[in-house]
């Protein structure tokens, strides 16, 4: 089970250019809204037609602009879980699931429906219409219907965007379990790094229609390569950087300081990324990688305290620094020297 996607498409002023390869795994497609995630899925499913490129599923060509191949969605065997599930509102749960089965009418077909209903715990909802179901039940029916059609790859388009947040955690576990019934490739579209991190092994970041090379999830979190990857990975602090003269030394014009960095310098780096929780107040007498700051504001968040800082030597108009600390820690009066660990600095390309 392998999927190769290499497509380009112009969509008004938006330009989609996506390349990735994936094996038998759950691959996250991570990107901000409007970056082309859904369009990519639609091209793979055959709902939208790319301008150029090829899509190959397990040696089977689904789309190839050079060979003029473009299979209709019916023949692609690509399962698509839509954001709002797209259950047929005029059909019962049983009919919805049966709609996915490719067998002719008969006992075999009935048995297959029965089997899926049991596996997805839908016995009590068989005769109900989709609008009478809870969000979680709707998702189960939609997934059951997809598995009924025996797809070779499943596309999940923001599977939890239609649900209340308090339900998400439980449903995420449920979805993970149900997906384990499926043997093949899963593409999981999300804008939520936590969701992607918990459920996917590898990730392909999309920024403004362009895909970055596939990396594993840990690498994205610990060492993102670009600014948009860093933003998606939850790096709150991004600031321009120049090489600082000596090896391992960085010059940060916006913060008016020089810092040591554990990552070796490479061509193309324009910014550094820094998580808010990586910064800590400097200890007495600590000098290495320390930065004198003024506290601009303090915000109590649900589980932490967020401090907005301004480096003392920063030029006017420079972006401030975000620091996250545990609640209840004593607040310093006035100035606050902070320490930035060298290993927490990520070097980013623009």
């Amino acid at each position, binding site marked *: 089970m392998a999927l190769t996607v290499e497509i380009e498409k112009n969509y008004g002023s938006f330009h989609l250019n996506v390349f990735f390869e994936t094996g038998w795994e759950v691959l996250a497609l991570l990107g901000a809204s409007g970056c082309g995630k859904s369009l990519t899925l639609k091209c793979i*499913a055959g709902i939208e037609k790319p301008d150029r490129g090829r899509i190959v599923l397990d040696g089977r060509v689904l789309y190839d602009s050079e060979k003029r191949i473009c299979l209709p*969605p*019916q*023949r*692609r065997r690509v399962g698509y879980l839509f954001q709002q599930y797209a259950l*047929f509102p005029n059909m019962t749960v049983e009919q919805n699931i049966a*709609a996915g089965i490719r067998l002719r009418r008969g006992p075999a077909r009935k048995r297959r429906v029965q089997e899926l209903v049991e596996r997805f715990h839908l016995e009590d909802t068989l005769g109900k219409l989709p609008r009478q179901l809870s969000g979680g039940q709707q998702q189960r029916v939609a997934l059951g219907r997809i598995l009924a059609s025996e797809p070779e790859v499943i596309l999940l388009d923001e599977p939890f965007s239609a649900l209340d947040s308090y339900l998400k955690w439980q449903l995420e576990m449920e979805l993970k379990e149900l997906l384990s019934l499926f043997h093949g490739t899963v593409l999981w579209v999300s804008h939520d790094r936590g969701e992607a991190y918990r459920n996917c092994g590898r990730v392909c970041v999309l920024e403004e229609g362009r895909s970055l090379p596939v990396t594993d999830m840990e690498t994205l979190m610990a060492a993102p390569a670009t600014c948009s990857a860093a933003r998606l990975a939850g790096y709150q602090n991004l600031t321009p950087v120049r090489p600082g003269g000596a090896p391992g030394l960085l010059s940060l014009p916006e913060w008016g300081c020089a810092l040591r960095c554990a990552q070796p310098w490479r061509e193309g780096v324009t910014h550094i990324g820094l998580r808010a929780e990586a910064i800590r107040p400097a200890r007495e007498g600590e000098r290495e990688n320390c930065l004198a700051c003024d506290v601009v504001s303090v915000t109590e968040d649900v589980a932490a305290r967020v401090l907005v800082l301004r480096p003392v030597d920063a030029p006017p108009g420079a972006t401030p620094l975000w620091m996250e600390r545990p609640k209840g820690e004593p607040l310093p009066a006035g100035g606050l020297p902070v320490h930035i660990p060298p290993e927490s600095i990520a070097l980013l390309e623009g």
Partner: protein
Amino acid sequence: MDWFPLLNSLRIAAISTVVIFFAGILAAYYIAKLPPLLKGVLDVVMTLPLVLPPTVVGYLLLRLLGPTRPIGAFILEHFGTKMVMTWWSAIFATVVVAFPLMYRTARGAFESFDRDLAYAGQTLGRSNTWVFWRVRMPCCRQGILAGTVLAFARALGEYGATSMIAGYTPGRTATISTTVYQLWRTDNDALALRWVLVNIAISAVVLLAVNLLERRSKAPRRKEAV
């Protein structure tokens, strides 16, 4: 009282409704898929009879179907029948005049149809025909039914184009509307009033049917909210 005009009106309206039903749905479905410019042009053409005076429609139909006109002459030569001044001539008039009502309501229904439902059907391996009849049509049922009833009501009440293309021959081409006009013109006020009441009764029943359909479509949702 001779009931022929009622029978004639009903059969004309019924046959034209069947024609309009399929033509309107097909037009709405395929025009929605066209590129914007062509869509805009065809949309105007399809809707035009709604705003044109029926006499203009009648005039245009006579120009096409009259015995000396292109289509009319062709039919007369090959099939030996005139296209105008028969009872079924009125069907041409009612189809053209009532078509936009079906076309526009069906189009509105199709436009509000969630496209993901069609995509879901396709990715599940279902044919486009299956998706159309099993998902799209049931989901758009209300709009299509409303359009059908409106088209029927309009066809039943058509006067202008009908009188031009089918004329008024008692017992042959007379409809309720042309009969009312003739009776009034010939000072037969009492009988004219009777036909007027018949017409009002039928129209009221039709509109009542529309309201009942709408209420039934809303009822399940109201129950759900409780």
